[in-house]
């Protein structure tokens, strides 16, 4: 019997090699990845290395740069923290409760993924401006939102929300009702069950969502610049400073700021991967 297949002994064994196309797909994927992402990114790294340590340090320690990084990081941190609180509440409500319009709300949580940042930016700016729907009542209470760091936080909350919700939601859905019932039969009140059984189980997902929202917030540009006011040292974010330096044809300064932002992004990415690996090892899920 002529057969082109593997020997019978290997027949039941999962042998990836019988599926064709590895060379083609892997080769294409890696080449494309290198051309579009890796080579351009390493260009940034090489260019900032070319600056030399002293020059790099001079550019990086520029007070306006430091201030911009601090604004970006600080607002992103606050926004991510707000998103953790409300993102967990939103996820809980969506997973646990049934109410009219739940499907719609669930779909709209993805809006920040789908809505262009510039559109979100002008909408938030006009909403929270002193003459806007929300800005006006807030101004009457003496609270200025748009054109202050608070405005940046608002924009970053918008941008970061789905990261927290969509990271926490699937883990919440997998919570075994039996675990909650077990806690109840052991005498734990609902609050104790929440605080000591449910939240610790969700902690890795919540932390991951926080880190994702933070990473996105630090680099966010489009939705922020309209509402931020962009006052140097006060409400000027790091990505905007990169754009400003480029417009001044000061590529060196832009490169230095870009390299630092890239380093922050990689550190966060590393942290996220570490978190997920730890959670997988400890609890057997990601």
């Amino acid at each position: 019997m002529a057969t082109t297949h593997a020997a019978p002994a290997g027949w039941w064994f999962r042998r990836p090699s019988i599926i064709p196309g590895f060379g083609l797909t892997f080769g294409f994927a890696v080449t494309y990845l290198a051309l579009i992402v890796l080579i351009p990114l390493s260009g940034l790294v090489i260019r900032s290395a070319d600056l030399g340590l002293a020059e790099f340090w001079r550019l990086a320690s520029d007070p306006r740069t430091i201030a911009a990084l601090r604004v970006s990081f600080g607002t992103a941190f606050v926004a991510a923290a707000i998103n953790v609180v409300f993102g967990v509440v939103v996820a809980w409500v969506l997973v646990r409760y049934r109410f009219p319009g739940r499907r719609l709300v669930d779909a709209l949580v993805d809006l920040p993924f789908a809505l262009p940042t510039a559109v979100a930016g002008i909408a938030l700016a006009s909403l929270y401006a002193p003459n806007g729907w929300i800005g006006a009542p807030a101004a009457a209470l003496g609270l200025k939102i748009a054109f202050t760091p608070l405005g940046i936080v608002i924009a970053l909350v918008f941008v970061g929300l789905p990261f927290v919700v969509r990271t926490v939601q699937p883990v919440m859905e997998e919570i075994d009702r039996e675990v909650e019932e077990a806690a109840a039969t052991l005498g734990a009140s609902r609050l104790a069950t929440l605080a000591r059984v449910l939240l610790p189980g969700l902690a890795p997902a919540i932390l991951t969502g926080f880190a994702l929202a933070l990473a996105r917030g630090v680099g966010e540009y489009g939705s922020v610049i309209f509402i931020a006011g962009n006052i140097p040292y006060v409400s000027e974010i790091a990505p905007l400073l990169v754009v400003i330096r480029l417009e001044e044809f000061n590529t060196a300064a832009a490169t230095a700021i870009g390299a630092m932002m890239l380093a922050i992004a990689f550190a966060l990415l590393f942290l996220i991967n570490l978190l997920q690996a730890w959670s997988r090892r400890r609890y057997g899920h990601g």
Partner: protein
Amino acid sequence: MDLRIKNVRKDFDLTPALHDVSLDIASGELVALVGPSGSGKTTLLRLIAGLEQPNAGTVYFGQDDASRLSVQDRQVGFVFQHYALFKHMTVLQNVGFGLTVRPRGKRPTAREINERARSLIELVQLAGFEDRYPSQLSGGQRQRVALARAMAIEPKVLLLDEPFGALDAQVRKDLRRWLRELHDVTGHTTVFVTHDQEEAMELADRVVVMSRGRIEQVGAPDAIYDTPASAFVHRFIGESVELPVYIEGGMIRLDGIAIPLSAADEPDGPAALVFRPYDVAIDEVDRATYPGIAATVVASRWHGRGRRLELAVGAGGHSMEIDLPPDVAPPVDSTLSVWPTRWTLYRPSGASLSHPTPAAAASMVSPIQQMAVAQ
């Protein structure tokens, strides 16, 4: 603590899961709730625990009406089917959890909790595993952690939902014996749910057979096996052979041919003739001398302690399997005469049923006894 369940009814979305169920469980007893899926056994267990509320009826713990107590206050030790261990806590933390969440006044000190948890871990033979996480344990070990955790709160009753369902055969057998021994030592009133009748018969003091939201029969394993109260129990507990027969003028007919069993005083109509595979006699030499049921041997299998025959019987060729002692070995395709030595007739009305008394089982023609259905 003894348990009384009185006229409990439970509906899920208008479909009844339990109809008017009553059951008394004595203190220290080990009781099995057994039945196929959907029989209401897990619902009954959850009602006892307070995880569900009955639509009608009451659950008493001793003299107290437990229906007024929340789950938290009932102090039941519940072992879940999939153990429901807290993944982010170590074995020690899992076992101690029930004590650490007690209100401040009733809470033991951290040291007492630690000691109590450790002694329980030792009791379930997991000493040395205190600092492991559930994901680092085998199924049988998780099961024992769940049990220790449930016992830590000094439960009034211990409730186990399919305690061995998720384990492989060998571990299941060991744990079963171990659980029985543990029960004899600790003496907790224990109720467990299982769909495996063999497990229920081996482990329990008393077995509660359930079907479609009702209790079919309650009794010691032997009694349930030997005197099943309904066709359902007969089929569900142990192996049985069932033939569709018709009663006409006190004669039992299979496919129109009378068989040598009498059902005097029984009204005419269809019935099911049920018997155990080994409660049969055969005559393989001369059919004419003993007019049993005509049967052809389809297959014959040796299983070490005897022989199992697959037969085609009656004009309709009904398939049935019987067990024979080792020394009898009729060849395949040979014809036999077969008759049950101990049998029961069940009528489709279900309202009444008849069966030969054990004493009369040896005789061919047994009186039919009317019995009331157990409510």
